[in-house]
């Protein structure tokens, strides 16, 4: 068992590493477009180029991959004269990057060619004063200083530089002259739980993604818990009646539900229960974070939609498994012995027949995740699915990458558990 676990864990790590490569380089193709999204279609090439630099997109692809994966603070620390550190923002509670200058949290800002130091006092206020920093001379003779700016970048400031920088602020694009020349967006990397800033919201991806994932989990878990007994029951019922009309009805209904796209089922449920009968809300409106618990009615239609998508699949596997077991020699022996049919089914067949579906279902988690995405978009549930969808529409590659990595991780872990459960339950595999 231990050997099995180690081998599977290793394989999982290799898979996740390859997934990260695939994901990064698929998204890499998009690189330039996000500046158009952020700046609008009327932005000049200079503005876009400047923004690209501020997002650190001018670094080579492998460098950004390493930054994304394991963080850029290692390499930034080598450049910065002061130690880098993270501190929570007193208002939002989100982690921000600072440097520690003589024990005081400090960041810098360039205003009209003058470098200003922003110091965080112990009581959380910020004091701005003209900075006195140790400028160093680089190989071209220019005076440079690497420091943290207010947007979580390590910036290379050059004294007396006349390079124009176009900063995107809430009021639009602002021109700044003289100063910042190179940006390294500071992040701890996805393996250390920091997926960078969302380009769409300008907040850390990891600050939103987990609460979103919790909503999705509730949705998926509710559907899963409700559909499993139902699908297993009907699957067994179809399996013991193989070839009879009851089997046909269950099998065709199941196939129908599985083959119908989730959004079609959802749309019909909305039409019937939301619009004609007016029994249930047609969309899920989340006024508060715990809306699911305050008003469980909003979950009914989404859960029903997911159940329809899963039902056919589980029922089908259960049926196939049951049919196989019912044809096996030991069941025939039981019949020949003259045992009552009911007893054969419940005592002899059921246990073996249910082993396959319960574990195989876990291998099909990807199917469920896909359904969750569609259902969340359809009903407007703020979960992981709608998060990745919104990010994909915007072209917010940091958010897409993080959310995709999270879904893949969930899928891979679940499959690993499914594999292990199957091996544990099935001695034939365990000792093979």
């Amino acid at each position, binding site marked *: 068992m231990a050997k099995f676990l180690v081998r599977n864990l290793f394989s999982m790590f290799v898979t996740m590493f390859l997934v990260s*490569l695939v994901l990064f380089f698929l998204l890499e193709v*998009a690189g330039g477009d996000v500046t158009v999204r952020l700046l609008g279609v009327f932005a000049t090439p200079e503005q876009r180029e400047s923004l690209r630099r501020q997002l650190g997109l001018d670094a080579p692809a492998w460098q950004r991959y390493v930054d994304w994966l394991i963080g850029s603070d290692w390499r930034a620390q080598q450049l910065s004269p002061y130690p880098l550190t993270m501190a929570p923002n007193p208002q939002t509670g989100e982690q921000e990057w600072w440097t520690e200058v003589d024990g005081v949290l400090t960041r810098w800002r360039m205003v009209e060619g003058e470098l200003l130091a922003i110091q965080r006092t112990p009581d959380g206020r910020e004091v701005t004063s003209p900075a006195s920093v140790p400028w160093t001379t680089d190989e071209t003779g220019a005076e440079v200083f690497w420091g943290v700016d207010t947007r979580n970048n390590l910036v290379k400031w050059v004294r007396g530089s006349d390079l124009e920088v176009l900063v995107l602020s809430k009021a639009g694009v602002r021109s700044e002259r003289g100063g910042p020349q190179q940006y390294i967006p500071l992040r701890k990397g996805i393996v250390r739980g920091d997926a960078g800033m969302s380009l769409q919201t300008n907040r850390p991806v990891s600050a939103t993604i987990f609460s979103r994932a919790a909503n999705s989990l509730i949705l998926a878990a509710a559907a899963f818990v409700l559909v499993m007994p139902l699908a297993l029951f009907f699957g067994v019922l179809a399996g013991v009646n193989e070839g009879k009309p009851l089997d046909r009805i269950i099998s065709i209904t199941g196939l129908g539900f599985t083959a119908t796209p989730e*959004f*079609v089922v959802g749309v019909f449920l909305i039409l019937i229960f939301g619009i004609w009968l007016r029994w249930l809300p047609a969309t899920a409106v989340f006024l508060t974070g715990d809306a699911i618990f305050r008003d469980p009615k909003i979950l009914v239609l989404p859960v029903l939609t997911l159940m329809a998508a899963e039902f056919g699949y589980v029922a089908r596997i259960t049926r196939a498994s049951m049919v196989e077991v019912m044809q096996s020699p030991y069941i025939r022996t039981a019949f020949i012995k003259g045992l009552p049919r009911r007893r054969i089914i419940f005592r002899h067949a059921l246990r073996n027949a249910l082993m396959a579906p319960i574990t195989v279902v876990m291998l099909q988690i990807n199917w469920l995740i896909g359904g969750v995405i569609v259902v969340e978009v359809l009903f407007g549930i703020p979960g992981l699915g709608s998060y990745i969808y919104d990010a994909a529409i915007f072209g917010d590659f940091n958010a897409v990458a993080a959310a995709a990595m999270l879904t*893949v991780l969930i899928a891979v872990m679940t499959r690993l558990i499914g594999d292990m459960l199957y091996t544990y339950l099935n001695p034939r595999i365990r000792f093979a």
Partner: protein
Amino acid sequence: MTTAATTPEMDKRPSLLRQVRDALDLVFSSRTAMVGLAIALFWLGVGLLSLFWTPYPPNAQMFSANQPPNAANWMGTDHLGRDIWSRIMAGTQVVLLKTRLSADPPIVIPGGVAIWGVIGAVVVGGLLGVNAGYRGGIADQIIMQILDAFIAFPVIVLYLVIVTSLGRGDLIVIAAITITGSPGVARLVRGLTLDIKTRDYIRAAETRGESKWYIMLREILPNARGPILVDAMLRVGYAIFAIGTLGFLGLGLPPPDPDWGSMVNDARKYIYANPLAVAWPALAIATLVIGVNLFADGLREEIMRYQR
């Protein structure tokens, strides 16, 4: 498998007519496959008809918006005052009948996005799978490990990532279906190859000194075509499913040609004003996918029955 004595008749390959008749016999012997085929052929017929005739031009905004079904518009009109039945008819085209290579100038090739996507998946997946299975060793491990990484993605997430990076268009959707489909095909073909490669005729070809590619393309793949074809049929169903879902998510086939998924997506914003407008295209997608699935499923059951 069984080894039969070679008689003169067996040297000749069965004629094409005979092959078609055998295949049809297989379909006719399964009621499920028949029903599925009937539904799929209905939509194919509707699509072919729509190439020459629709009640109204599918993109003409010639009626008042959001009409319920009436004598002039059998299924009503959509939010822009277009005839829904005409649009549904024309909606089969992008899925099954035509692919737009570029919008300006308009270049259209026959064969729908779903069809080309599945062909792409079968070609790419087939080549990868047969190479992995036949060559074995390190090549096998590398190919399968990379494909495992793709399989680890939930399909829709992979679609979202691809569409994020590549944008929208018929070719992008084809590429997305190819990328998401080929790992599955590769796994299947690899399994079949591992089985076929132990046969005597492969030994014979190797002894003759045939090249590896000859053996893979002329000896192994043709002998694996049955399961591959059934799998491909199932994949056409998935592809239509996926195109519908992408269209619904607003990431599907670009306008102006009507696309069922996008029609659902547009109509659901007006669901209170015109509830039926959302039902028709949803019904169309569901029936087509179910039809193709029933067909593939029935076919598979029949073939499995003979193999048992």
